[in-house]
């Protein structure tokens, strides 16, 4: 089994998000970056599969050299080698094109990634890559088991789950439940240094979208508590303060 796992490099969940003065760029200074948690789930599942049935796990990241520590962590967790497409990940369309360019013809049986990255939360990647590569794409999978070239996946759907069977090669995006990420061990960390991290140049892709500006959510307003039997007061407040009626 030859598996490709796409990982993105996202700010740690505890990061305080700030932007530049034009509100067009996220301030990365002093920010701790980590493997996108959903990608980590996908990576863990990929490693589990190859540990059981043999095969290789390649991690792929589209981004600049500053992401190398994140890629090394993926190698420390147990991926066999890594590819970095050397370009800033402009938008989903750009990244999807880079991924399909690397994966096309490379003979991967399975391409895994997280359901979404926790920075931009676009949730488009699996579908875009599937379309570009013309292979099945299944998103938001809670489990994935393989038997030969047949995979059974549980999908999360509104109010329940859906079970799908699909043949390799295909793309799946992982959600909680598919695997429990493990802490890399000392041996993994020490071997990460010696595993190949191949840097390839990006292919040209049209720019289809542009960030106009970012904004942080407004702080939550004050809560005014009204006694349950004081409906007059409530109506008055809805008129004068909330101005909704």
């Amino acid at each position, binding site marked *: 089994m030859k598996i490709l796992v796409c990982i993105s490099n996202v700010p740690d969940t505890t990061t305080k998000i700030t932007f530049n003065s034009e509100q067009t760029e996220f301030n990365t200074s002093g920010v701790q970056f980590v493997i996108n948690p959903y990608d980590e789930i996908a990576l863990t599942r990929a490693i589990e599969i190859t540990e059981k049935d043999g095969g290789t796990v390649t991690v792929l990241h589209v981004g600049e050299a500053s992401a*190398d*520590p994140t890629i090394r962590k993926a190698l420390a967790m147990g991926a066999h080698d890594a590819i970095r497409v050397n370009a800033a990940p402009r938008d989903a369309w750009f990244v999807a094109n880079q991924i399909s360019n690397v994966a096309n013809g490379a003979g991967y049986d399975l391409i895994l990634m997280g359901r979404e990255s926790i920075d931009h939360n676009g949730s488009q990647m699996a579908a875009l890559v599937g379309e570009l590569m013309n292979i099945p794409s299944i998103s938001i999978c809670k489990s994935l088991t393989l038997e030969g070239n047949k995979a059974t996946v549980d999908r999360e759907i509104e109010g329940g789950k859906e079970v799908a069977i699909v043949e390799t090669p295909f793309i799946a995006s992982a959600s909680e439940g598919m695997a429990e990420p493990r802490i890399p*061990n*000392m041996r993994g960390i020490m071997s*990460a*240094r010696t595993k190949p991290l191949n840097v390839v140049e990006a292919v040209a892709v049209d720019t289809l979208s542009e960030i106009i500006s970012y904004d942080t959510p407004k702080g939550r307003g004050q809560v005014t508590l009204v006694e349950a039997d004081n409906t007059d007061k409530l109506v008055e407040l809805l008129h004068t303060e909330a101005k909704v009626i």
Partner: protein
Amino acid sequence: MIDTKQKSLKGGEFIIRESDPTSVFIPEEYTEEHKMMASMADDFLDAEVLPYLDRIDSMEEGLMKSIMDKAGELGLLGISVPEEYGGFGKDFITAMLMTEKMGAGHSFAVAMSAHTGIGTLPILYFGTAEQKSKYLPKLATGELKASYCLTEPGSGSDALAAKTKAILSSDGKHYILNGQKMWITNAGFADLFIVFAQIDGDKFTGFIVEKNTAGLSLGEEEHKMGIKGSSTRQVFFADCNVPVENVLGDIGKGHLIAFNILNIGRAKLAGAALGGAKRAIGLSVSYANERQQFKLPISKFGAIKHKLAEQAIKTFTLESALYRASDQIDEMEKELLAKGLNPADSLLGAAEEFAVECAILKVFGSEVLDYVVDEGVQIYGGYGFSSDYPMDRAYRDSRINRIFEGTNEINRMLIVDMLLKRAMKGSLDLMTPAQNIQKELMGIPDFGNGEETPFSECLTAVSNMKKAILMVAGAAVQKYMMTLAKEQEIIMNISDMIIETYTSESILLRVQKLSTTKGSDELTVYIDMMHTFIYESADRVNHAGKSAICSMADGDELRMMLLGLKRFTKMHPYNTKDSRRRIANVLIDKNTYPF
């Protein structure tokens, strides 16, 4: 004096020489691998230790052991064990970084460091080839867990007065141990006990004793103020037959094991304290940001800012000194290896060379942590006093650090004692610079040219602190000669001056080095921390120096030394309120300890 620059100083030499900032290691220079290991350790604590602190402290059956096993699976117990024995053979800085990270793990930190430190290292450094291959691989994975039995009911600080006896059996195959050990960490689940006993009543010797040896039994768990989850028991030996091949090191040379392992242990204790301090600051600042009184987060109040800043300043200084010394130990080890010593003797030799620094770190580290958790409780207010909040445990768990691995009194005395011994042996020339100080005191003071930068001021201040030490220590030696050991109060004063000086110089060197890579905006907070620490450190040196001088001198000599001390501890007025506010604001903004 204090002008000879050389790449790396010998142990204790900081008192008479300056260091070049480019020659010191600073934590900002960690490699990618260091960072990965550190983050692994953080993940481990978050997943396997911190959620279970209450259960650990209630001594839930088997829990500590199982967490140790998990640490073993990840490789965390084999960091310092050479690869040939199934470990990872990492250098001292790396081992220190992992100790620091685990140091935030309360009782687990104690269990782990007793196992990897005083439990494992005696075999690594003093074991025979057979002992090493028999035990080390299993200690490195955690399959075997270790403890260290030195202290007895009647011998704590005076460790060599241990009474446990060992007598060779008539067939010459065993030593028969009889006696009692006290306060033994990990005893409850240890498979191996490193035991010190007197062969024939007077040859202090180390032994490796396996748990299932007949005649070995354990007391009940002690009821403790803190680190309640760490197993601490008495260990009894009643006609306990230990095979002769389990003698550790040379007969009659147990003190070499005990003291050398302690040097390393003391530095590591400071590492663990650093980890605990960083966590406590993180908790303090996030609580201060959340807690509102008088309609404001309490972190807006100057009194609270003062505490947060001081916690950070002290902790950052500790870190600077700790990794400076760790790197010196690594460098010395390499030097000794290159000279043809074996790896075990190289590290031991290096740690012994820097034994003064290790003792300084032990005292400073444990006192910084105590300060940080004490103010942590204060910042939490009533909730700091509640067992439902984390500061209560942090406060209680910190306290032991001033007691074990040599009490802080014993370590303070050692600092001065070791330096004077080196001076007597001629390996450290304190005399010449001390005499130069006498001459300098007779001359006209140098008032400088008035134009001072924070660096030039702090450089002068640190170099003057060294002069103050030499002046006071020189006078004490002259006055008391061989009876100085009886003037413990003065020794404590001198020791405090030395600790202040080493730590001041360490933060100075670190910030000097940082100034070559950080922009001026980013550097501000570091300069603030350095300037504030050194400014007040100079006062503390003055305070300690004054009480020493007034205790031993009178008349003209008293007056001259007090004037000298004043000259050597003087700094330009500095607004520490503003600087602490700036420092605190960085913590408050980042909502964590960010350095």
